[in-house]
């Protein structure tokens, strides 16, 4: 089976998604609407008297809305929070088990908030039959919870499903569910929809098996795999909670995530998901749901056209900021290394790259004319600006390129912890000098937005041996 690498546009979509990108999740807001109460399966980690304890936060009952109320709420939130970018339907039941309510909500939003990205989380049972409809509403992202690809393991997680007008139990139920999930995943990937896979780590049930799940969903083109710890406490009243099923330790979770990440492939591992509540509003980790309860938004009249315009402007500003001014320290990203350490090139996931840019948005600078380099740490999750580095220009004009050894040496010193340099053009001599210093120059991305270029080159790099970038066919200084 083949692993496809992410195209630059896929990478850019991920980089700006508040749930999937470690930078974007600090800048953009997302709203989850609780319009889908019914579920078509039973999981042993869920007590159906409350919200699902693993897909949502335990013990918090969501505010159930009609489709009309949900759309009104999204418009009100989108007018008050201009950095709202994503509206998702994730529960309390399964959105695709409530297709009428789900699509009525999306219809209203497609008309009055066409700029918002819509997403859905599902157990996958009803997914294949709804794929065409989802594509119609330009659903950007679908999350499928896949806990197993083996029915004998599935039978220990799912006591029953509702399928073709019957309740089906045991191994047969798990077989059908797994088939539908895999079929749905394949259909979505074939239609260009981003698919994230969630898995609940259940020690002794699917812990070893999740490596196989990771391998399968990676091969099928899921772009992210998020392994979440089982939540199972007796007070939740779930089967697992009441039968003493242990929750995973932090170490078990970390080791499994690392093992999956080490299996390679283009599917990234997501480490920052906080299992946000189904009706969460705001930035991840900063929940503002109470400000936008139905009572508060019901009476509001929203100028939705003005809201769309405002969000579009704010979004463009944030996108620029993510590329240029993102100085966020995130605990899961690698800290900036002391200069002189080639950690960028040595860590399998994070790669340090430098960009020569005049306008700060695109790869537009000639190496020899650059006044500064922008230094980024690039991982499958996105690109983080480490710092700007001023350099002595060593090339005073296009015709004197190459005869300024001390300045070139200074530029190389400024780049010595970077594995790759992106620029619009570069002379032959500096090219050789950079290569000799084990820095790969790359001018293939001339003119592209910096974030696209970084993510594309980062993906290429992970698929190849280090320093496989060759000067052949590149634009060299005349």
């Amino acid at each position, binding site marked *: 089976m083949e692993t496809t690498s992410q195209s630059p546009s896929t990478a850019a979509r991920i980089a700006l998604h508040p749930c999937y990108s470690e930078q974007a999740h600090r800048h953009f807001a997302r709203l989850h609407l609780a319009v889908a109460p019914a579920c078509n399966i039973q999981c042993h980690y869920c007590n159906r*008297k409350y919200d699902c304890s693993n897909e949502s936060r335990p013990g918090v009952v969501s505010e159930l809305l009609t489709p009309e109320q949900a759309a009104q709420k999204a418009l009100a939130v989108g007018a008050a929070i201009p950095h709202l970018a994503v509206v998702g339907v994730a529960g309390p039941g399964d959105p695709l088990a409530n297709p009428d309510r789900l699509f009525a909500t999306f219809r209203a939003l497609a008309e009055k908030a066409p700029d918002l990205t819509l997403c859905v989380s599902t157990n996958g049972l009803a997914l294949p039959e709804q794929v065409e409809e989802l594509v119609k509403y330009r659903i950007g992202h679908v999350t499928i919870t896949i806990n197993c690809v083996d029915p004998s393991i599935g039978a220990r997680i799912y006591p029953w499903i509702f399928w073709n007008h*019957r*309740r089906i139990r045991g191994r047969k139920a798990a077989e059908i569910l797994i088939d539908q999930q895999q079929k749905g995943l394949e259909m979505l990937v074939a239609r260009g929809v981003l698919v994230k896979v969630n898995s609940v780590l259940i020690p002794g049930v699917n812990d070893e098996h999740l490596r196989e799940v990771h391998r399968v969903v990676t091969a099928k083109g899921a772009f992210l795999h998020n392994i979440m710890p089982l939540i199972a406490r007796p007070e939740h009243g779930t089967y697992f909670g009441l039968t003493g099923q242990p929750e995973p330790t932090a170490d078990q979770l970390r080791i499994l995530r690392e093992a999956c990440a080490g299996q390679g492939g283009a599917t990234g591992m997501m480490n920052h998901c906080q299992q946000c509540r189904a009706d969460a509003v705001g930035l991840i980790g900063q929940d503002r749901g109470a400000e936008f309860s139905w009572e508060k938004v019901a009476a509001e009249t929203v100028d939705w056209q003005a809201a769309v315009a405002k969000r579009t402007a704010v979004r463009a500003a944030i996108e620029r900021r993510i590329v240029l001014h993102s100085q966020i320290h995130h605990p899961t990203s690698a800290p900036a290394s002391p200069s002189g350490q080639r950690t960028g090139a040595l860590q399998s996931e994070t790669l340090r790259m430098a960009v020569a840019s005049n306008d700060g948005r695109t790869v537009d600078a000639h190496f020899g004319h650059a006044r500064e380099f922008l230094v980024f740490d690039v991982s499958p999750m996105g690109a983080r600006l480490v710092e700007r580095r001023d350099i002595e220009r060593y090339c005073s004009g296009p015709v004197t390129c190459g005869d300024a050894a001390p300045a070139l040496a200074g530029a190389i010193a400024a780049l010595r912890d970077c594995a790759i340099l992106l620029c619009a053009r570069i002379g032959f001599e500096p090219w050789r000098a950079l290569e000799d210093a084990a820095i790969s120059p790359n001018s293939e991305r001339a003119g592209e937005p910096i974030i696209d270029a970084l993510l594309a080159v980062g993906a290429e790099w992970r698929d190849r041996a280090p320093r496989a970038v060759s000067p052949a066919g590149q634009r060299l200084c005349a």
Partner: protein
Amino acid sequence: MAFRIVACCTGCWACLPLCPRQAIRAAAPHFEIDPARCTECAGDYPDPQCASICPIEGAIVDAAGQPLNPPGSLTRLPPAPATPLPIS
């Protein structure tokens, strides 16, 4: 011949859209079946639809008051809540 929804219904909506006779109403404090409309799905489906998706044991009962989904049948948890729980 009609089924009945009783107090332990959580109002999860799963049954309502499936009823071929539109017999189910989203009432409070729990959903209700209109006995004049409910046919127990006879002639429409081999299994009664509401009772085949309902996740709550005991929430739907037959004409004799017997639960369609008796305790333990859906969750696989031991029926009596007072039973000491097995540890690990």
